[in-house]
Each structure stands twice: as C-alpha cells, then as structure tokens.
C-alpha cells in the first residue's frame, strides 16, 4: 500500500484524493469478494433450502412450504438472486435469518456490544501483560526471563477453550471468586477476558521483546545513553516506540484471533455475542446469519488494515517518505 502524505504541495490534494480513493476501492473489492464467497456458500449448501430453513421439528404442510419457497425467492434464477442479494447489501440489508426470522443486521447489531466489550477488554489486558513482560525481560538473561519465556510458550500453545474450562473450574466452581455466567457487571467479564487475552499476550510479548532487543542494539540507543539518559528511560521512551511497529503488523492477525476466539470463549462461558450467534447459525445451517458474520469480519478486517497503514506513517516518520 502506498502511504498518503507527501510534502509536494501543488500535487497534494489530488494525491490525497487518489490515495483515499484507492483505499475505498480496496475496501470495496474485498467486501464484494467476501459477499460473493458467502453467496456462493449459500448456494453450494446441499439440500433443499426450505427443509434446511424449517429444520426437522415441524409439521409444516406442503402449502406452507410452497409459501416459504416463493417468499424467499428460492425458485428464481441464481444470477437474479445474486443481484438481488447485492442490491439488498447496498442498502445495508443482510437478509433475514432462516431460524430466527429476524433481519440479520438487527441480530448482529444486538450481539455486537457484548462481543466488542469482551474483545476490547481482552485486547487491553493482552497489551498490558505483554508490555510488562517484554519491558521487564528484553535484553536480559535471568531467571525471570526464563520463567516469563516459559509462561509465554505455554500461553501460546494452549487452546483457549481448555484454558477457559480450567479457569472456570478453579475460580468459579472451586474458589467461587467469580460468577459462573452472565454479562452483568465487570465481574462476569474477568474470566472470559483473561481466557481470550492470555494466548494473545504470549504472542505479543514475544514479538515485542524481539523488537525491543533489536532496537536496544540500534545506534540511536547508544547515542541516547551517551546523552545521559537512564537505562529505563531509554527502554520506555525510545526503544519501545520502535519496537511497537512490529506489533502493528500483527493487527490483522489480532483481529482475526479476537473475533475467532470469541466463538469458543463465548461457548465456554455461555456468554451471548457474535461468536455464540455464529455457532448457533452454523449448527442450524442458518446461512444468512453465517454470511452476515463473514461480511462483518471482512469489514472489520479491512478497516483495521487500512487504519494500520495510516498508523505506520504516524508512528515511524521514516515511512512517510514512502
């Protein structure tokens, strides 16, 4: 991706416009692709869509089935169904859930808050843990480092659903420190957020430390030290800023891990949210909802990756020259 800002005054406005336009095209093309992929998925789904829609628990008569068939336009040519679907998308309509008979966008909007809350708390928690762990150990050889390194390895290698089960067993069932379920209050958020955060923190800490160690060896650190700055100040003020850049490159992976992770964490902790909605839809083959979630994930991803590109330029002045 090209970066946007340039000192060349006369050409500035068109260039900015072109850059913005380029980004919009990139976003739109990924979204269109995801929508097409999702639609293809819907059509590839084996079996009669009406049977799938009704599920097995029904006494629906043939007349009712025919009514559903025409209501949903299942008999229209695939291409016109596709165009209709895209048209609806343009108006922000994601279709209607087969099982819940509600607009998919409403369902997603309803569940978004809870998942967002969980993902954000986990993200903050992970960044804090990783930062502390990396700053405390970078460039040092000590027992602490070995211990933290081992911890990170375990965290990275542990399936989050298992971690969640262990935390639930210990802290909710045995010690009863935290309530077992629910979404009310900060207390109910602690264990799910920790579950989601720990494996991510493990990865972040490793990447941060590698970045820090690299930065600490750079000439500017020596210069700064020579100017009389303390070891800790150098670490935090200069090197850390430098080391944060690789973190940015992880943003795509982070988004995916947080979003994917909520599916399992919400299952283990019986929390409502996008993940729980996805799982329910996968189980009942409620394809419109699955498609909606796929589109949402793609949207979040492209927005964040565009944002990351911009942030690069902000954090590292050298990159601005493009």
């Amino acid at each position: 991706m090209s970066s946007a800002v340039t000192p060349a005054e006369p050409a500035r406005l068109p260039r900015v416009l072109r850059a913005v336009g380029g980004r919009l095209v990139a976003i739109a093309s990924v979204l269109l692709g995801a929508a097409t992929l999702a639609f293809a998925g819907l059509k590839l789904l084996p079996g009669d869509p009406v049977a799938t829609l009704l599920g097995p628990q029904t006494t629906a008569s043939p007349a009712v089935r025919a009514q559903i068939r025409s209501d949903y336009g299942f008999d229209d040519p695939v291409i016109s169904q596709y165009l209709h679907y895209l048209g609806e998308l343009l108006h922000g309509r994601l279709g209607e859930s087969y099982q819940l008979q509600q607009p998919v966008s409403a369902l997603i909007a309803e569940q978004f808050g809870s998942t967002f809350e969980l993902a954000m708390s986990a993200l903050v928690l992970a960044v804090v843990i990783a930062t502390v762990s990396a700053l405390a150990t970078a460039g040092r050889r000590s027992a602490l480092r070995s211990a933290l390194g081992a911890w990170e390895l375990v965290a990275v290698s542990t399936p989050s659903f298992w971690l969640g089960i262990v935390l639930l067993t210990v802290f909710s069932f045995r010690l009863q420190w935290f309530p077992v379920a629910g979404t009310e209050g900060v207390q109910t958020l602690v264990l799910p957020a920790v579950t989601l955060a720990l494996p991510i923190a493990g990865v972040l800490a490793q990447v941060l430390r590698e970045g820090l160690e690299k930065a600490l060896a750079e000439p500017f650190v020596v210069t700064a030290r020579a100017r009389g700055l303390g070891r800790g100040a150098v670490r935090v003020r200069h090197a850390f800023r430098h080391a944060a850049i690789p973190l940015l490159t992880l943003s795509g992976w982070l988004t995916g891990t947080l979003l994917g992770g909520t599916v399992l964490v919400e299952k283990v902790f019986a929390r409502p949210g996008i993940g729980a909605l996805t799982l329910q839809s996968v189980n009942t083959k409620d394809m419109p909802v699955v498609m909606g979630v796929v589109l949402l994930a793609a949207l979040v991803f492209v927005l964040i990756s565009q944002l990351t590109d911009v942030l690069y330029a902000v954090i590292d002045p050298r990159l601005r020259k493009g």
Partner: protein
Amino acid sequence: MRAIRPPGIVGAALAAALVLSACTSTTKSGNVAAQADAGPPVRGGSVTVAINTEPTCFDIHVSPQDITASIQRNVFDSLVAEDDQGNFRPWLATSWEVAPDLTSYTFKLRTDVKFTDGTAFDANAVKVNFDRIAAKSTKSQYAASLLGPYTGTEVLDPATVRIRFAKPFAPFLQAASTAYLGFYSPQALAAAGDKLCAGGAQSVGTGPFKFAAHTKGQSLTLENNPAYNWAPTGAGHQGAAYLDKLTFRFLPEDSVRVGAFAGGQVDIAGSIPPVNVKGLEGRADVRILRHDFAGAVYSLFLNTTRAPFDDERVRKAVQRGINIGPNVQSIYFDQYRRAWGPLGSATPSYDKTLENSWPYDPALAGRLLDEAGWTGRDGDGYRTRDGKRLSVQWPSAPAAVREQRDILAQAVQADLKKIGVEVQRPALDLGAFTTNAYAGKYDVLDMSWARFEPDVLRLYFNSSNLPSAGGQNAAWLSNPQIDGWTDSAAATLDRPTRDRLYAQTQAWVIEHAAVVPLYSATTLFATGKQINGLRLDPNAWPLFHDVWSARR
C-alpha cells in the same frame, strides 16, 4: 430424537380419548414444591429461572418448539385448561358443548377478559386467532396441525363461538388447552402479525404476565399483569400473579446453568443434569422438583425392513445384548429409570408386567446370532456371515443431542461389540439426518416423545405412520395386529378396553424386538427454598401464576 413433531391430525387424532374420559393419571411424586412452613403467600418481588434453550421463534402460532409454549404460557391463555388427571376445566371459556358427531365445538366465553393492550377478549378475537393459525401465509409449523381439519369459526354472539371441522375431530379440546392455540390481541395481530416471531412488546395476550424485555442470547423478562383475574378453575389462587417480575435466563451449558443456580444467581433452574442432583439435594436451601416422564420413553427403534434387522433373532440379540440397567444407572446417577416398555411409567395404560421380563443376557444374544448364521469372526472381533461383517448404522445428529445420549450410545456400542455387533454412528447435520430418517436409510434410530397419552403407540407403530408418509414409525412396522389394536384403542373411551389393547401392543413390540427401550427421563427442576408454589403441568412445564418468593 424428539425433533420430529407428530403430524397434525395423525398425531393428535386419538388423543381423543382425553376429550371425554378423565384419563386417570398416575400420581406423580413431588410435582408441587413442598410448602412446609412457608406461611401466607407474599406479593411482589422477582424470580429468575435458568433454562437451557432460547426459543428461536416466539410466535406460538408459528413455532413448533416446546420452549416457546412453555415461556409464552405465562403470557397467553387458552379456552380450556387440562389438569393432572386429564380433565378439562373452564378458562377463557366458561362452558362448552361438543356436537355428537365431533365436527363442531361451541364455547361460551368469559366477558370480563381484557388483553394487556386494553382490547376486550371476545368471540371475534377467537375467530381472528384461529383463522390466522390456519392461514397459509402464517406459515405455522405446528399450531395449524393442532387445529386439524379446521374449516372456520362462527361468531354466534360476542360471547359465543362455534369452531367447525371438516370431519370428526376428537382431540380438539386437548389441543385448545395448549399454549399453541392461545390468543393474541386482534389489534396486535393487525399491527404486527408478520413480526411476532421476534417476540417483544407486540406479543400481547391475556395472561398473568406480559412482555417486559428481551436480550437475545441472554434473557427474557415478563412483568405482572395487574388486571389478571381469570385464572383457570383449579389454579392455586385467583387474581393477579404474586410476582412483579419473572425473568428467564438462557444458559444452555449444563455446568454453567447449575453453577449459576448454586451460586445464587438464579432462583430456579430447569433441566438439572442428573450428575448434579445429589449435590444440590444435599443442600439445605435447595429443593428438587421431579416429574416422571409420560409418553414414549427414549428408545432404539430397529429398522425391521432392512438387513440385518429384518431377522427377528438379530433384533432380539441386540435387545438382550445391551447391559441397559447399570449403564443408565451410572450415566444418570439413579435419577432416570431404566425402561422396560415403550411407554413411560406415568403414561396411562402403562404395562407394568413387562418389567424385568427381558434382562441382560449376552449368552442368549450370542446363541441367537449363531442361529441367525452370524458365526464367523473377523480380525476386529466382529461377527461375520459369508465374509460380511455384522455391522449396523445408527446415524446421529450432534446438534440435537441432549441428556448425555451420546455417552449412552457409546455404552451401547461397547456392549454390542462384546457380542460381535459393530455399531457405526455417522454424524450428520440436521438436514441430512432428517432426510435419511424419512427415507429409512438407517438400521437404528433413537427417539423419545413426551406426551401424556398412550396414543403415542399408534404414532410409533401403526403402519399409517411410516416415515415415508412423514410419520414416526421408525421401526417400519406394518403389522395388521398392531394397526388393529392401536386404531381400536384410539376409537374408544372405555378405559379397560384401552388398557388391554395398549398392553397387547406394548408386549408385541417388546416380544418381537421392534424397539429397545432404554430410559425414562425425569424432569428435574431445582428451586431455592425461598420459592413457593411452583407447579409443573401435565407436560412437565412450570406454571408461574402461583409462584411467590419469600425473599423480596
């Protein structure tokens, strides 16, 4: 699998027995929470109930789900109520008359009933609702079948309606007592008739509670309807419900639901896993409510039309080769009972003589298989005949598994392996599973069917209900004797005759090993000691009109 509902008329048809005969009900132990020293009922307060399923559609006229009816029962009233004995009692109808040929029912309605939006409940409301259920555009997945051969509702005067049917329709009163045939405010139907699946404030009924709030995936809150003064005859009290607020929390994970109850986050929890019962029962502040299972117990149906189960000896071998008792005991911690016949012990006409009549006997099973020619053994220890392994297909739909049935199935697999029978369990998603089931592409199918009525035997074994016709006869029986017994039993209201015919049916299907009954489930609710007045209706659904909490 209880997933497939009884096809309307077929399924309901001879629930007819219920209509006139007061089917004796087996007395169920502990279906009313003990009220020792509770003192007089306290008004006000709120109660939270943890349940394991969230309705996907809240529209009682559309949804086929038990849970929808169970929750909405608190919001919607019916024409009549059915009590534990199977008697019908006045509710929104004060009296009724059934035409001798059973093609029409005339109801006298109460005149003091109002919907929570202020609209009066009258004959027109009945007509609008029933017409809506029957309309094709409603896309009813269950209620329409309860109305059977409905042809229309006649408004004789504002307080009198006549419901007409194209042919004699005996089960109508029973159907009319369910929440599926409850009444929406005609005004709400006109305003939002096509959006009622979503539930919410447009679900306006006449019940003791009305909608307050719903967060999908989390909870549904109902609030008191202060005007309520038309509880069915026989209710614990008249007038408004005691509780100000009633909240249902959706907690599908067993351990989480139990944990939430044990930690005091909810007052009542449903579907308590048997493993947790003992621990909860040991606590002084907890009561366990039990309700014996009525209907067709959880059983394996052996496909009698397909090899190897077209050979009765092989079926019998499987029946005697599963060590059912100890497995049920250990998996369900003595809470569910091992079943000896196709009916649950609380069902009318249950045949007690079958108990202990076919104990575990692997040696006999082995001899039967030898006789049937399955004498060879292959490398994995399975029996063979003419070089072919004795292997049976038992499809599973993981999405629909409950009550640890997947674990029980593994025990069955292990036991049958010992007598040399391989059981394969392909995991299918619901669509493929249903398709296979109706096409008979299986050797074993597992099902249970909760219903307070032995007519389920007709649903299960009568040849008019073959899966190919959309029915539940999963053993694919076409036996004139069975057809005769179940049809005649369904056409009479004479109790001894019914008992005899149904006993013959039960004995036959066990004798010929069309079915291997496994366990009879127990409905298990846990309530805090502060909760009083909780009752389970004949369907084992909780009723909250009389519930009050000692803790404010």
